[in-house]
């Protein structure tokens, strides 16, 4: 079996978004309502 001569890469730290970014997305999702009109148009409503 062929030997591997390359060194194993150092474990890189996982890149993660800021917690506040994730929180914002989740809160936005909870607040957003999309209503479809009879003309098939979407209305976005953000409820606080």
């Amino acid at each position, binding site marked *: 079996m062929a030997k591997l001569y390359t060194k194993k890469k150092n474990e890189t730290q996982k*890149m993660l978004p800021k917690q506040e970014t994730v929180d914002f997305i989740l809160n936005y999702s909870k607040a*957003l309502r999309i209503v479809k009109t009879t003309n098939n148009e979407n209305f976005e409503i953000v409820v606080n």
Partner: protein
Amino acid sequence: MATNQLPDALLVRDYINGNENALAVLINRHQSKIYGFIYSKVLDRDVSDDIFQDTFIKVIKTLKSNSYNEEGKFLPWVMRIAHNLIIDTFRKDKKMPKYRDSDDFSIFSILMDNSPNIEGQIITEQVEADLLKLINELPDDQKDVLEMRIYQDLSFKEIADLTGVSINTALGRMRYAVLNLRRIIEKNQIVLTN
């Protein structure tokens, strides 16, 4: 089956049906790949966060408006949205380059606001008001020349024509006006500084 082990397609369906927790699971599952992908292109944490946020706002809007069709897989679809937003960001940057503060470079080294601050403006107004009072103390002929020259920006020729005197007389009156002002200021120990 625990929520954390459900496949993406089921979580997406749950989310569309109103289970907000499904989105949290999807984000938690894929955030590293999506964020890492964005960061590998833009190399800036803040911009990456912005794009990550915009990506999921698009995801949420598409899912909530029932426009999502499960043709492909969830993750490649989100990656494609992120990719398009990255391209948009580069386009915007090309149109309007951004400069950011760093240890070696401060934006304020090339960007300065030379307008006076509020304190400076108040002092200037006070000095100008005091000066007007002093000018009113001058004899009329000197005061007229000084006002026409300084406040109305007339030339000495124009002043001479308007007041019916020679240019030399107008010049002389201006000189006496300034000397008299200095004398009043020194005599009364008035401080006019800005």
